């Protein structure tokens, strides 16, 4: 299969993603960027206030709903969207779906940002964060606690395997940036590659553990979680939801980027991603419905209450999303595919949000609605992730593109922006020549 078609680049009608190419020709700072930065600043200021005033004055949390959106949305939901490094990575490295490698850098980047922002907010949400230092004493851990598992495993994952997996694009940029750095970069890269199998394997084991433990968190809450959601299978369902949601996030974001920055889409890669996602979705839906059936909870889905409404909203949007994905495969049509990703991921988000919030019934009178400050901080940390993403795709080679895009970028920096020294991808005047190790004596 490998090199059967040597002349793929010439095939203009069917673009193939063959190289990661940074987004060029668009300034990093634009009005959207400024708005996001303002949101981040507001969130930082409010965070400082929260650290002084405590959680009560800034949030809608109360004795009945001890957890608010910082945990239940920014961590539970957004890290599921950010499990791309896990799900896409397993498809690419373990099941050797070679085409998925084109999406790998997107997956790694979105994962890292989602986890980093989630973890920051997890620290802000904790009432006594200074006691996190117990994390360095493994014998003090409560190994039976799903929360300990989540907190420890997530931090280790984001700080070691995920961060390391994101180093290659940075090194690559350094390599192109200055020829004096090349020997060092090459040495570091070689070291890195040596450890990669262990790091990548950890990058699949750890999220597998903590994404399922996120589901296990609510097991202890017992009957207070509505029977449509409370099941011993919660860990597996959480993991499954994370898998298809993250595929949706990675592929959907890539498509959106292609649209915004006018990139060609490789329908072969996208089709394969959609096919995998559709399988994941229908497998997951089957498991979920069987579980509800066997526990005899199906009746509650036909009550006329908010729980049934949430259930149907979530199930239908996931199912319709899956159906759209399958349809898009027949016509290789990016439009229903994108809508399919959006719908299924939105449904998955509702699913991940429900057990802790929408379907959590601590007592009949209790209510929770996030306070304004709470929402602003939550938004601010999402903006932080988006900011990071925008900077990264414009400064590093993250987005996949046809080979031609690389040459276009090289000539762009040479002829249209020759004065750019620090922000361009290449060293001044570099044209993408002198790439082989032999002639790198510059």
């Amino acid at each position, binding site marked *: 299969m490998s090199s059967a078609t040597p002349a793929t680049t010439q095939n203009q009608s069917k673009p193939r993603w063959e190289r990661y190419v940074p987004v060029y020709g668009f300034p990093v700072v634009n009005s959207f960027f400024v708005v996001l930065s303002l949101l981040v600043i507001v969130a930082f200021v409010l965070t400082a206030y929260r650290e002084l005033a405590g959680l009560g004055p800034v949030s809608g949390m109360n004795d009945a709903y001890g957890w608010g959106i910082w945990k239940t949305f920014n961590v539970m939901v957004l890290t599921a969207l950010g499990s791309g490094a896990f799900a896409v990575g397993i498809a690419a490295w373990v099941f050797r779906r070679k085409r998925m490698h084109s999406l790998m850098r997107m997956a790694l980047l979105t994962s890292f940002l989602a986890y980093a922002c989630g973890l920051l907010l997890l620290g802000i949400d904790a009432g006594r964060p200074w006691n996190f230092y*117990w994390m360095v004493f493994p014998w003090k851990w409560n190994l*039976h*606690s799903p*929360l300990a598992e989540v907190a420890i495993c997530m931090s280790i994952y984001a700080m070691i395997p995920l961060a390391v997996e994101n180093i290659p694009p940075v090194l690559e940029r350094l390599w192109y940036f200055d020829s004096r750095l090349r020997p060092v970069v090459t040495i570091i890269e070689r070291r890195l*590659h040596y450890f990669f199998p262990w790091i990548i394997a950890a990058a699949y084991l750890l999220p597998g553990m903590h994404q399922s433990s996120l589901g*296990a*968190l609510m097991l202890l*809450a017992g009957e207070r979680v509505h029977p449509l959601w409370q099941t011993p299978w919660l860990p597996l369902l959480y993991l499954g939801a994370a898998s298809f949601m993250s595929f949706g996030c990675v592929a959907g974001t890539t498509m959106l980027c292609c649209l915004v920055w006018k990139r060609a889409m490789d329908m072969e890669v996208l089709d394969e991603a959609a096919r995998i996602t559709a399988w994941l979705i229908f497998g997951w839906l089957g498991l979920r419905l069987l579980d509800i059936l066997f526990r005899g909870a199906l009746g509650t889905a036909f009550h006329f209450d908010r729980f049934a409404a949430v259930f149907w909203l979530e199930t239908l949007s996931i199912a319709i999303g899956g159906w759209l994905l399958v349809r898009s495969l027949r016509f290789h049509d990016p439009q229903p595919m994108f809508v399919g990703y959006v719908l299924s991921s939105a449904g998955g988000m509702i699913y991940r949000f429900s057990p802790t919030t929408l379907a959590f019934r601590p007592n009949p009178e209790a209510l929770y609605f996030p306070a304004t400050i709470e929402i602003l901080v939550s938004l601010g940390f999402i903006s932080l992730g988006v900011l990071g993403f925008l900077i990264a795709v414009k400064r590093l080679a993250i987005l996949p593109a046809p080979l031609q895009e690389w040459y276009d970028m090289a000539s762009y920096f040479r002829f249209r922006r020759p004065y750019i020294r620090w922000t361009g991808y290449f060293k001044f005047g570099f044209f993408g020549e002198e790439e082989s190790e032999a002639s790198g004596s510059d």
Partner: protein
Amino acid sequence: MAITRRELFTRVGKGAVPAAVAATVGVDTLQAAEPIPVPSAAVGLLYDATICIGCKACVAACAEANDTPADTRRDFLHQAPTDLNDVTRNIIKLYKPEDGSEFSFVKRQCMHCLDPACAAGCPFQALHKDPETGVIGWTPEKCIGCRYCTITCPYHIPRFQWAGFNPRVTKCELCRHRLEQGLKPGCTSVCPTGAVIFGPRPVLLLEGKRRIQSNPGRYYQDRIYGEHDNGGTQALYLSHVAFEKLGLPELGPESVPARTLRWQRRFYQYFALPAVLYAGLVQVIRKSIKGHEEEAHEREKRTGLRAQL
């Protein structure tokens, strides 16, 4: 493709199958409720709702014994908390049905479960069951303020302090500081009718059974709540109305953590299964990386552009 996938399964299978066999052999023994050990010097409370007159002396005494300020937030005059909260470890509540049938008071405080859900979830063992007395105490130096305990406790006992930069988790700790000095808990020492008494758990159980026997028909279901419920608790209840009405849910004889975290605990036992998975993954990925690198270098030769891995 198919071959590589099969290869993955066999690789993982080689290690996982023995592990799975071991697990399934052990299932029968693990499936049965594991008996929960009762601490050697387990102490507790026995509350009898049929005797309680609702004077709330114990509420005031509890605040005094624990050196907490009186909660006057309701009318800024009286110590009248409406529920357990960040300064209230003990509360008397009234259950009064609308149809005019029997009413009852109920004293709510920590049940000191034999297998506590709060401690099962607490990440760094800030909530910890004393191995001797069985009292579940809170250690401020280990608490990260995650509030998981307020979600896991089936009786909804621990309360988080929502104001301030140094919040505490408040729950009845059976006046462990007083027990150390040889004193009785605050609440039991002031109760005018003896509705709540303190003692070693076996003695309290005997006393409860004696009361049930000498007053046939007086007590709900003729049983003590907490003898077996939720795996057994150290605070025991007698009542003339249904326990559920008093906020004591029917949880069955198995404790909440044992019932809900069984599979979770088995999966992580000795970290054996994760370790096997990890080893299998490393093997498969090693091979994939080799293939991927070869392909990338081939492409480098073809395009003249540096390989991107």
